[in-house]
């Protein structure tokens, strides 16, 4: 429904704005089909690839970055929520890292790690880490202490309290954080690629921007957008699966 509205709006706009700055939906769709496997325009720049491969490259980087960020950020957030000293140590570091704009950080990463995918991946992973760190920490702060107290009086060890109380009790918020991080990660990855990469959707945009190929840029961005929305839908579905217990009670009408 929302997509139809967007398309209609887009179509309407093309009748007022010059074709060279805003292509029609149909021409972009055709362009996506043309460029899907192999984009001729990119061959000029020595890039033998199409939208599919580039999208796969970008998606892999995003997935890896979100995974890295989740594995580092979430546990760190949980642990620091329970150990004041550690928190005082880690908080300032991550908060500072989180406020540096990616434009400032990117050149350093390109110098340190080269134009390989690792640069963009790490760049995105840092931001995902910070987001999930904050989400996990807040979730752990907010969980009612009665659950941990109850676990201890039942004989749980510290490790079991983390596994059976802290983790499941914070999973809904952490998963929510992963969705938000994922949504932001696409844009960050594209920017990171724009600033220096050999492949990816961002790289295509950068090359075609040099040739002011608006249609091509639109085609690339549309593919990126569709995949991002699809991934968010997938993430939402997984979130609902993983935290069944957290569903609102009144919806169970089966």
């Amino acid at each position, binding site marked *: 429904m929302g997509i139809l509205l967007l398309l209609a709006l887009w179509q309407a706009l093309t009748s007022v704005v010059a074709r060279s700055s805003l292509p029609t939906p149909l021409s972009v769709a055709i362009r996506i089909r043309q460029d899907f496997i192999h984009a001729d325009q990119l061959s000029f720049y020595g890039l033998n690839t199409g939208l599919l491969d580039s999208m796969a490259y970008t998606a892999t980087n995003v997935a890896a970055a979100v995974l890295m960020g989740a594995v580092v950020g979430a546990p760190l957030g949980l642990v620091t929520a329970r150990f004041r000293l550690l928190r005082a140590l880690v908080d300032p570091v991550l908060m500072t890292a989180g406020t540096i704009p990616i434009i400032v950080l990117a050149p350093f990463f390109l110098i340190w790690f080269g134009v390989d995918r690792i640069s963009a991946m790490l760049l995105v992973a840092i931001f995902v880490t910070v987001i999930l760190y904050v989400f996990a920490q807040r979730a752990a702060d907010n969980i*009612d202490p009665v*659950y941990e*107290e109850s676990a201890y009086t*039942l004989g749980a060890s510290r490790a079991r309290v983390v596994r059976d109380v802290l983790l499941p009790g914070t999973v809904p918020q952490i998963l929510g954080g992963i969705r938000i991080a994922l949504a932001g990660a696409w844009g960050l990855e594209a920017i990171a690629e724009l600033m220096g990469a050999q492949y990816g959707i961002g790289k295509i945009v950068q090359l075609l921007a040099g040739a002011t190929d608006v249609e091509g840029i639109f085609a690339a961005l549309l593919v990126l957008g569709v995949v991002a929305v699809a991934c968010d839908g997938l993430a939402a579905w997984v979130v609902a699966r993983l935290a*069944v217990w957290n569903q609102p009670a009144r919806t169970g009408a089966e």
Partner: protein
Amino acid sequence: MSDVKIEASALSRSYRRADGAEVKALSAVDLRIEAGQFVCLVGPSGCGKTTLLQIIAGLVPPSGGNIVVNGQRVTAPGPSRGMVFQKDSVFPWMRVHANVEYGLSCRGVAKAERQKVAAQYLERVGLSHVAGAWPRELSGGMLKRVAVATVFANGADVLLLDEPFGALDYVTKRQLHDVLLTLWAEGEAGRRRTVVFVTHDVDEAMILADRIVVLRAGRVVDDLAVAADRPRTTDALLLPGMVRIKHILLTHLGLEAAR
């Protein structure tokens, strides 16, 4: 038979509230509870009952004084002292039966055995039919019963109960009194468990307790023995000795003038 199970000496606890004010939740509490005794703690809201239980459980360190259980100083919570909390403590992320099995699983009891025990206690609190449900699907009173089953199934020798039946209807409450009294009687090696039971309900205290300790403003202000035979029927509560205790309790709670 008169070995001391719980011994609090000169126990005090103060809290500093966020606004800077100092609250004395407990001051100079001396209390000896013998093994097998069923003690009810009564007193007005805010007098320190929960705080005292938390200190015995090892969840809150005292600001001063000593707490000894089983001859050992309490420094941390552990499975030898089971606690039913005033607040809801059932894990929302585990199904009802998994909640009841939790303590047993922490102590390494085999799956088949703990399933059997959990089923047995769920049956006793009348919740067999919701064993597979999520806690969010239960009513408030049912959640309380899950918490009770969880702690009872874990079989601790000392049971600390903080207004466990306060939210329950009269019939369920009376049924759970029987469950609790049975559990109390069947401790390890045929000995009674030790129970500290917080309640606002004077009648509940008189049905259950061997001894009623009255707290007010963080101090023990009275300590009454309840000698009536068990099971205590409705008639037993009307015996002159019981009526006298009830008058004393109501006076402490400010409901009757001293006479």
